[in-house]
C-alpha cells in the first residue's frame, strides 16, 4: 500500500512538471536569430524603458501600440524637479522614458525600424558598435544612464546581431526622440 502511494505521488510530480514545462517560455531555435532576438529583448528589460508606459485599470503598463519607440516626442518634459534633501539622485517621467539625474536629462531611443527617427538606416555593425563602446553609433556622444551599457556590452556579437535582426521586424513608429539635455548647472553656464 505504501509503495502504491509513493507511485501515485511520483506520477503526480512527473505530470505537474510536464504541465509547468508546457507553460514556461521555450528557448528559441538556435538557427532563428529573429526569434532569439525577440527572446532577449523580452527578457532583458528593453520594454521597461524603450516602450512608453501608460496607466491602465490594472496599473501602469507598457503601451505596446508604441512598442520600443522611445520617449514620445509629443510628451515635452519640463525642467527636472529639484530633488528633496537626502540620498535622491534621479527623477523619472511618467512614461518611464525620460530620466533626469546628475548627467542631465536623457530620453530613451526609438528602436523601431522607422528610417528617419528610428534604427531603419542602421546596420548590425552600428548597433553592435553602440552597445560595445557605449557611444552613439559607436562613435558619437556617450550613451547616457539608465541604459545599462556596462551589462549589455557583455552580450556576444551573435546576441546583438539577433537583437538587431528582431528590432528590424517590429512595426516602425515615427517618433523623433528629443536630444538629451545638459545638467541644469551646465545649462545655466552655457547661457
Amino acid at each position, binding site marked *: 500500500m505504501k509503495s502504491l502511494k509513493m507511485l501515485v505521488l511520483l506520477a503526480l510530480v512527473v505530470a505537474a512538471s510536464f504541465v509547468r514545462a508546457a507553460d514556461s517560455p521555450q528557448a528559441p531555435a538556435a538557427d532563428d536569430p529573429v526569434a532569439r532576438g525577440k527572446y532577449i529583448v523580452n527578457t532583458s*528589460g528593453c520594454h521597461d524603458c524603450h516602450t512608453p508606459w501608460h496607466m491602465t485599470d490594472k496599473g501602469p503598463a507598457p503601451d505596446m501600440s508604441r512598442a520600443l519607440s522611445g520617449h514620445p516626442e509629443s510628451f515635452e518634459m519640463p525642467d527636472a524637479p529639484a530633488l528633496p534633501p537626502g540620498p535622491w*539622485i*534621479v527623477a523619472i517621467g511618467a512614461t518611464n522614458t525620460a530620466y533626469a*539625474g*546628475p*548627467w*542631465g536629462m536623457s530620453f530613451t531611443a526609438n528602436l523601431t525600424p522607422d528610417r*528617419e527617427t528610428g534604427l531603419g*538606416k*542602421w*546596420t548590425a*555593425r*552600428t548597433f553592435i*558598435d553602440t552597445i*560595445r*563602446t557605449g*557611444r*552613439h*553609433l*559607436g*562613435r*558619437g*556622444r*556617450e550613451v*547616457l*544612464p*539608465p*541604459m*545599462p*551599457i*556596462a*551589462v549589455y*556590452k*557583455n552580450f556576444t556579437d551573435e546576441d546583438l546581431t539577433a537583437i538587431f535582426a528582431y528590432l528590424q521586424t517590429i512595426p516602425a513608429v515615427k517618433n523623433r526622440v*528629443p*536630444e*538629451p*539635455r*545638459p*545638467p541644469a548647472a*551646465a*545649462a545655466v553656464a*552655457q547661457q
Partner: protein
Amino acid sequence: MTRAVLSALVLLLTGLGAGGARAEPARALPQHLRDTGLFVEGSMIDVRPDVMPFSPQYPLWSDGATKRRWIWLPPGTSIDAAQADAWDFPRGTKLWKEFSHGGAIETRYLERGMDGEWRFGSYVWTADGEDAVLAPADGIRELAAPGAPNGRYTIPAQDDCRACHEGAPVPVLGFSALQLSPDRDPLAPHAEQAANSVDLNVLVSRGVLENLPAPLIARPPRIEAQSPAERAALGYLHGNCGNCHNDEGPLAVLEMTLAQRVAAPPAARDAVKRSIVDVPSQFRAQGAPRDADRVEPGRLDASVLAMRMGSRDPLQQMPPLGTQAVDAEALSLIARWIETLPRPASGSGHTK
C-alpha cells in the same frame, strides 16, 4: 559627477551587476615606448634614421597640443597606393604621434601586425621625460597636465582609438595622398611642418610608395574648391571629421560625408556640400531652430555643424571625443566659408 558614481547609478537602476567583464584581447604591444622602435637604442630623444617624419596638411585639432609624427616601414616593403584614397600599408608598418603641452605627455602608437591586424596603443610620458609607459586599455580620463586646457589631459581608451580610426576605409588617418600633397594649403589651420617631413614626391622617389596614379604625381592632389576659404574649410572638415563622416564607414547611415577624395576632387567636393548645405540636421542642437540645417548659407548661428563645433557640452560637441577646447581658429574659418556660400534664391529650397 564622476564616472564611478554614474556607474553605481546604472547598477542601482538596473539591479544588475556587470557580470563577467569582456575578456581583454591579448596585449601584444610593448610596455614601454622605447621598445617600439621609434628611438635609437638607449635614447628617448634621438629618432632612428629609418623612421620618417611627416606632417599632414590638415591636422587634427588636439586642443592646441604640439604634435610630431613618424612612420616606419619594414625594409624592402612599400605602400600600395593603387587605391588613391585607401592606401594599403605593408604588414609591420608602425606610426607614432607625440602630443606635447610644454613637454611630451603622450605618444600614440599604431602598428599593423604580421597577422594584418591593426593595434592601437598609447604611451604616457613620465614627468622627467625618461620613460613612456603603455596606458591602460581604458585610457586615463583625468591626467594632470599644467600646459593643457584646464590643466588636464585625457588619454584615449583603445575603444576611443578605434572609434575614430576604424570609421575610415584605412585606419591610418593623417598619412594619405591629400594629407601629404606637396601642394599644401596655406590657409589650413594649425599646419605644422616638421623638419625633413616626407611628402608624396619623397615617398615615390624613395620607392616606398608604389602604384600612385600618374595624374596625382603630375598634378599633386588638392581640393577643388570655389575659393581659398572653401578649400581650407573643406580640408579642415576632411582632416577632423571625414574619418567618421564619410560615405563608406559605419556612419554612412547619417548620409553626411565630409571626406574628400583625391581620385575625383570635384565630385568629392560636390558630395560634401550636397550632404550638408541646406540639408536639415537630424540633430536638434540646443538653442537651434527645430528645422535648422547642417549648414545654412550666410548664417553661422543657424548652422548646426558650426554650433556643434563651437560647443564642448559633451552631449552636443563635435568632435565627440579627444578635445575639450573649441578650435577658435577653425571656427572662424568655417564662419568665413559659410558667409560666402550663396543663399538659395527666394522661393527655392525649403523655407524657415
